[in-house]
């Protein structure tokens, strides 16, 4: 089995999915609140893996991916809400959307495709810029999304919240989408697109001389990552039942970017590890803020300490391990010093720095 996985380079995604499945299964033994937390974590995995597809392989930090998450979230709001509510709140929608409601899985995929379409148009322009200029341009994408969605009252209900989105997403639904996201990210990483993009990241001139068209590779990654982020947004809307443009703006952007950077932006396992570790830390701190009893002592942190401690943890992690917790490596079975099986396909690794 292990040889099979290693030969087909499926080791990492299978290990990641197993870990997430374990977390999901354990949560079912807990309270409703714990299950909601784990669902949230799994949705975050989808978003951060989506961001990884672009940021990890290209080396460009993108601040705008929350725009795609938001586009996906509003997309499912438009397609899955009951027509009776939609007709009053979202009067500017085309008739086709106003009078119909789709089942949630096709609606989520469609929302992802919508985000990918927007990414295709925006990325075609933005990705001609290089380096920091592209990063700032992605930030402007986020700002444009926020302003447009906050003011397009008839279609998005503006700065008001859209309420009444059906909520079929629970732990296992979120897990399924997380597995899909990991599969897509892994496939892209081991395909020629991922390899070409990493070549562009490491040595742009040499890559060009090999016939790799940087803009094209960046665009492929951008569109795929927008699709996955759109799926994440669709899940998020169908988990909370409420959408609002401010939920997909700076706060979430920095939380997700932090998870990616802390975990290690150069590998898929880094993205997932970052989400798991930081989510665990944040949840623990939230519990401590509420107050837990250890024996006879009641421990309670003052309100707001969760954000402060998380921030400090981020700084510490970046000082100790600038390349992230995973340092660009992927999850693998522990290897023996003298392997008895034939040499395996080398795992994805960035050049040691």
């Amino acid at each position, binding site marked *: 089995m292990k040889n099979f996985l290693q030969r087909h380079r499926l080791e990492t995604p299978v290990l990641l999915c197993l870990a997430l499945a374990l977390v999901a299964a354990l949560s079912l033994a807990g309270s409703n609140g714990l299950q909601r937390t784990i669902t949230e974590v799994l949705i975050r995995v989808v978003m951060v893996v989506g961001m990884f597809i672009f940021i990890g392989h290209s080396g460009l930090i993108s601040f705008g991916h929350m725009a795609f998450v938001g586009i996906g979230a509003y997309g499912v709001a438009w397609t899955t809400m009951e027509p009776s509510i939609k007709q009053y709140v979202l009067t500017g929608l085309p008739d086709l959307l106003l009078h119909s409601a789709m089942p949630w899985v096709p609606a989520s995929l469609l929302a992802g495709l919508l985000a990918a379409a927007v990414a295709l148009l925006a990325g075609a322009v933005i990705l001609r810029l290089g380096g920091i200029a592209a990063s700032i341009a992605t930030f402007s994408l986020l700002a444009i999304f926020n302003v447009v969605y906050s003011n397009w009252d008839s279609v998005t209900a503006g700065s008001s*919240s859209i*309420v009444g989105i059906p909520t079929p997403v629970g732990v296992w639904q979120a897990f399924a989408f997380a597995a899909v996201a990991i599969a897509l990210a892994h496939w892209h990483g081991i395909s020629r697109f991922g390899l070409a993009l990493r070549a562009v990241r490491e040595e742009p001139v040499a890559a060009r001389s090999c016939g790799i068209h940087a803009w094209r590779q960046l665009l492929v990654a951008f569109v795929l990552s927008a699709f996955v982020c759109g799926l994440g947004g669709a899940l998020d809307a169908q988990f909370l039942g409420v959408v*609002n443009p401010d939920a997909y703006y700076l706060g979430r952007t920095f939380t997700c970017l932090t998870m990616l950077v802390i975990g290690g932006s150069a590998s898929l396992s880094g993205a997932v*590890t970052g989400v798991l570790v930081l989510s665990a830390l944040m949840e*623990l701190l939230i519990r401590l*803020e509420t107050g837990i009893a250890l024996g006879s002592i009641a421990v309670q942190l003052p309100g707001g300490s969760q954000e402060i401690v998380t921030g400090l943890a981020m700084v510490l992690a970046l000082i100790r391990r600038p390349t992230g917790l995973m340092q660009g490596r992927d999850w693998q079975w522990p*290897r023996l010093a003298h392997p008895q099986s034939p040499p395996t396909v080398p795992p994805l690794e960035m050049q040691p720095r």
Partner: protein
Amino acid sequence: MPQNPLSSTLRRALPALCAGLLASGLACAQAGKDIVVGFANAKSGWVEAYDTPARRAALIRIDEINAAGGLLGRKLKVVETDTKSDRAQSAKAGLEALDQGAELLVVSCDYDFGAPAALEAQKKGKVSFFLCAEDIKAGVQGVGKNAFSASVLAAVQGATMAEWAYHKRNMRQAYVLLDTTIEYNKGICTGFDWMAPQLKGVHIVGRDNFKNGDASIAAQISRIKALLKEPDAIMLCSYIPGAASAVRQLRAAGIQSLILNGAAVDGSYWLDSVPGLSNFAVPVQGSVYGDDPNPQVEAFNKTFATRYGARPSNTYAFPGYVLIDVWAKAVNRAQSLEADKVTAELEKMRSEPTLFGPRTFSKEIHHQNQARLLISEVKAGKPGIVDEWTISSPVPLPVLLKR
């Protein structure tokens, strides 16, 4: 041999983190003869500034009820969970409170932040009450049939200022300055725009928008100065801090018009930013300045001060008290905690007297679309109650829903 991907420190810490998470996640079942009232409010973040005073007022009423023998012969027990001014956390905080057996879920002052928790309560078939949300959605239309709000709709505030200024301050030419940042502001101006055409001789000579975060409203002020005559009144639909900045800029530009506002700017804590402010009027549910016409309000303010170390800083503490008051009355009349029976009793209330004015609920509107409001005017930097006003007709539901 590749290094194990997770560092040893992390590997040691991870099981502990996970164990701690799971342990604290397991539900603790609560059973007893006390009635549990759950408060899923913000204890940090910006919503905290509104939730905390209202929650404290609610706790005062709960203590009064317990001292008088409880509700249906049982004591009221309070369970508090933190939403951290975050929507997803709000849903979880609501669930936690409901898991501990809450019969009533009191949610945040803002619709956006209270709705996730209220929706959880509605799913479980429990009554939810918004502490002081002033959007019509904080009720039947935005949550469900057992959701209510304890405050007065923003549209009522705008309509009240229009009618009061017309009758008592001879307002004929009005200018509308709307801060488009949040729904509450839009609600105030909706009410003003609904009432103004009904007042004979009133003309809205212009309208403009700005954002709470705008450093300067010089462009908007230029347009006001460009009018032939200074408007009698400016309806400012905004909240602190943008409202304070706007007022400061208006007065600095020499515009001396009467400035009308919504209740969100009540309080003297921000008046230092506009020294010597005059001709500034705010509608409130009760006075925190010691001059409420009802002496029991001042007694309440003193109780609040004794218990919490400071008087309420603005009118938003009061709806918390009203919330518990009307809910307890409904439970008593229904002689049951069942959501539908309590809801039915609440919906029967017509001008039910409370400490801060009469309250009415109906099947379609679980909110106040008409209310007695006190007018607080700031004169030379000092606020004080000068009048009271109830709008001549309730704001109709289609106007509130902006259809």
